[in-house]
């Protein structure tokens, strides 16, 4: 088991802490634990209370959504140096997606409750931490938007998709009764 000193070193190696002050890193280290997940093991499950986030040190984590009647869809894969999870930061603190280890994953877990408490008590830590975390969220949002663009598709695919949506929408709208009641 890693000591606080050892954890501080592991945190310092993670890109998330690249330009974070030693003081802030030291305070966050108090909420951290070193974790290992094996292939197929879930780091988080959709709907669970969210009180943790992870700093992936090594390996790949598939962020998935469960499709009823089908196999899960992978929305994104996170790997070395990535930050996983922000539901712990936003009420009602509930995990939004399944997060599954693809192969062996080594990660640092951070106790969200512990960190939220420290940030509330220490505004300067809160500002420094959040200014780093918001950067991750912004990058993730941009990447998600690019993924949504379906840039590798051909324009004709969009036309086809639009037509399909138009047909489906038309089918959903109930026919207006005629003035004659037909």
């Amino acid at each position, binding site marked *: 088991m890693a000591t606080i000193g050892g954890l501080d070193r592991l945190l310092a190696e993670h890109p998330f802490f690249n330009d974070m002050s030693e003081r802030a890193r030291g305070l966050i280290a108090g909420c951290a634990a070193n974790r290992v997940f094996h292939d197929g093991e879930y780091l988080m499950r959709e709907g669970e209370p969210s009180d943790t986030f992870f700093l992936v040190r090594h390996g*790949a984590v598939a962020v998935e959504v469960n499709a009823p009647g089908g196999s899960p869809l992978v929305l994104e894969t996170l*790997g070395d140096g990535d930050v996983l999870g922000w539901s712990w930061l936003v009420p009602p603190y509930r995990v939004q997606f399944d997060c*599954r280890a693809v*192969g062996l994953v080594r990660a640092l877990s951070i106790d969200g409750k512990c960190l939220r408490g420290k940030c509330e008590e220490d505004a300067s830590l809160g500002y420094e931490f959040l200014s780093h975390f918001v950067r991750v969220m912004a990058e993730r949002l941009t990447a998600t938007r690019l993924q949504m663009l*379906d840039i*590798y*598709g051909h324009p004709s695919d969009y036309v086809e998709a639009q037509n399909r949506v138009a047909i489906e929408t038309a089918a959903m709208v109930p026919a207006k009764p005629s003035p004659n009641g037909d």
Partner: protein
Amino acid sequence: MQTIPHTLSWGHDIPDPMRPARFRVESVQHELTGVFTVGLKPLDETQTFEFAPGQFNMLYQFGVGEVPISVSGDPARPTTLLHTIRAVGSVTNALQRVSPGTMLGVRGPFGTSWPVAAAEGSDLVILAGGIGLAPLRPLIYQVLANRSRFGAVCIFYGARTPDEILYRDELEQWRGRFDLTVEVTVDRAGSDWLGRVGVVTKLLASKGFSPPDTLACLCGPEIMMRYAVLALHDQGVGDQQIYVSLERNMKCAVGFCGHCQFGGAFVCKDGPVFRFDTIAERFDTREI
């Protein structure tokens, strides 16, 4: 950037670059849904077709029309001409129906090429999206054939889904080499896909190259290239180290007709491969 005059093609001067030479379809290989590769041989099989990586030909389906298609084969094997084509319009749909023995017209090769000589001694980042891997494949072949002349070589490829990975067998083969970094990502996948899911630009963060000593070659949808350039900037790769291949509506292929005008340049003649600093301002201009 190297410009190869069209008079160098298939071993003899072309008296008229507007006149197609006759080639026979030797093979048609299905790649993906709506994507196929045709192998062409000149009628005189003793002739060779020399081209530089990144150049394109005008393929003429007699009675239907002509389309610009990048050469996707190995420049060191000039006896068969390979073109990977996506069926999207009347000509490419007609080309999808050709079979071995069909006669096609070929004009070319045209345009600028990837800066192979300039990349020697540098790290090389090759970033492709979707069918954009096709114009980069000749560059990859040439680099691998002369591997010791280059520093680290990284191939980053993005596709829509695992089923839409172009040249999958070759990518897997290249990935097995010790002297090459190959990373593939897809936009969407099922849980049976063990590779990455996410945008291709994110692969640049995994590094494997030294930004000040890197030359980057990009080909794919322009939106992808725009964000890839930004991601390369974030890594410290400057505009002068980035080359992009543009796609426009090319008709004559020799800079006469103006269909592919891109500001003060013609993509057919001054491109399709541009050093990014020469087009950076126009690249972000919405009207062009």
